[in-house]
């Protein structure tokens, strides 16, 4: 018997978010700490600031609601909603990945990682370094060695 239980999440910068427990437990990390009884109230969410936590909660709410809907036609709408959800700047996208990883929300992690993957697929290493800021810590010799090991992929 699902009662409308609410929990409060506290972002790293001190903002409180009240959410349904069913939404909060989309995060396995939060779910585990509630079940172990070790979650305080409010539940602190270190490493995730209010801007990102708000987006994560928005994602979880949408997915919990969609799962409840009897009408499976919502699948296509959900995919379109997800596509819009990740239309954010790179910094936010990376923050969402870290948050999804820390909070252990597999579907959000897969969605955000797939988005980044689509941006880097099929590009040469030089192009990839240009799209994102990536510090190349290889010496030219080291880089050449790695290329040689994986020669076939460059042909």
């Amino acid at each position, binding site marked *: 018997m699902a009662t409308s239980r609410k929990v409060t999440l506290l972002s790293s910068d001190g903002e409180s978010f009240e959410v349904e427990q069913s939404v909060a437990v989309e995060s396995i990390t939060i779910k585990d700490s509630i079940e172990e009884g070790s979650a305080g109230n409010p539940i602190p969410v270190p490493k995730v600031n209010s801007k990102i936590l708000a987006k994560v909660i928005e994602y979880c709410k949408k997915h919990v609601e969609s799962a409840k809907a009897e009408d499976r036609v919502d699948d296509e709408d959900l995919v379109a909603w997800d596509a819009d959800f990740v239309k954010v700047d*790179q*910094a936010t996208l*990376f923050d969402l*990945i*870290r948050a999804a*990883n820390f909070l252990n929300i597999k579907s959000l*992690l*897969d969605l955000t*990682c*797939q988005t*980044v*993957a*689509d941006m*880097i*697929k*099929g*590009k*040469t*290493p030089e192009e*990839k*370094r*240009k*799209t*994102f*800021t*990536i*510090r*190349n*810590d*290889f*010496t*030219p010799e*080291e*880089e050449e060695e*790695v*290329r040689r*090991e*994986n020669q*076939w*992929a*460059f042909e």
Partner: protein
Amino acid sequence: MAVAEAKGRDGPDFSVLPEGCIATVVSFTSPPDACRLASVSSIFKSACDSDAVWASFLPPDWRPMVSRSASSLKELYFSLCDDPVLVGDGKMSFSLDRHNGKKCIILSARALSITGNDRLIMRSERALSITRDDTQSYWSWNHMPNSRFREVAELIKVSWLEIRGTISSRMLSPRTLYAAYLVFKFTHKRNGFQMRAFEVGAGFAGYEVGKRSVYLSRTKRSSLWYGINRPPVYIPLESDEGDDSYPKERRDGWLEIELGEFLTEDGQDGEVEMSVVDAKGNRCLVALVVEGIEIRPKDGK
């Protein structure tokens, strides 16, 4: 150690992501991407070489099919690409397409049904089925050093021939466009196959399978005219000549001709039938060696 700072747009540094997340990102790309990305930085190399990435590129059911060991899943993946596994009592060869991790199978000649007829055309329609136990010797089973199988089928002489094979789509990767190829060669240039048409096809049993007409010999009729009573002269094609109705040379020294293509889908399990049927002619056929039928993803990835 020199550190080169790549100034991109005002984007965040990829190194804010834990290595596990980079590995998740890479697992959504492709094997060639993962190998190219490894040279971007040392964190990327570590992520790209990780088992998490290569587990996602291997077919989901690889474990029961493979008994070899490797020091990493990446090593296992490439071992399965470069070093096919013999299964089915040595009659089938299984490997992976390195670009996408899809399964490739070669059915050896022993796994096919090869039928021939030694009577001259228009005299007999009786087709004799050549099986392992057959004593009729239109074919001989020989070992060939360039073959991946214990034996290949070597044609001695027939006047008509037919080759058929089947495979269950469960042995292949789902959601993939596959093509089937007859893999063969000739031991003699004058083999009777010049300008001899064969009808070939590949597709699911019970469905309409598009057939097309091909040649097995890379020769064409010479335009030189030697006179009314002289037989036609055949000359070989150049290596860049000839469309899809002529065989192509493979890197392993054999020839191949495409039989047809088919799409495997989720949940649709069925028997795929592949066939090479002689359109009949008035010359005897000799000197053909059959390695098998290869089924692999169609080019274009």
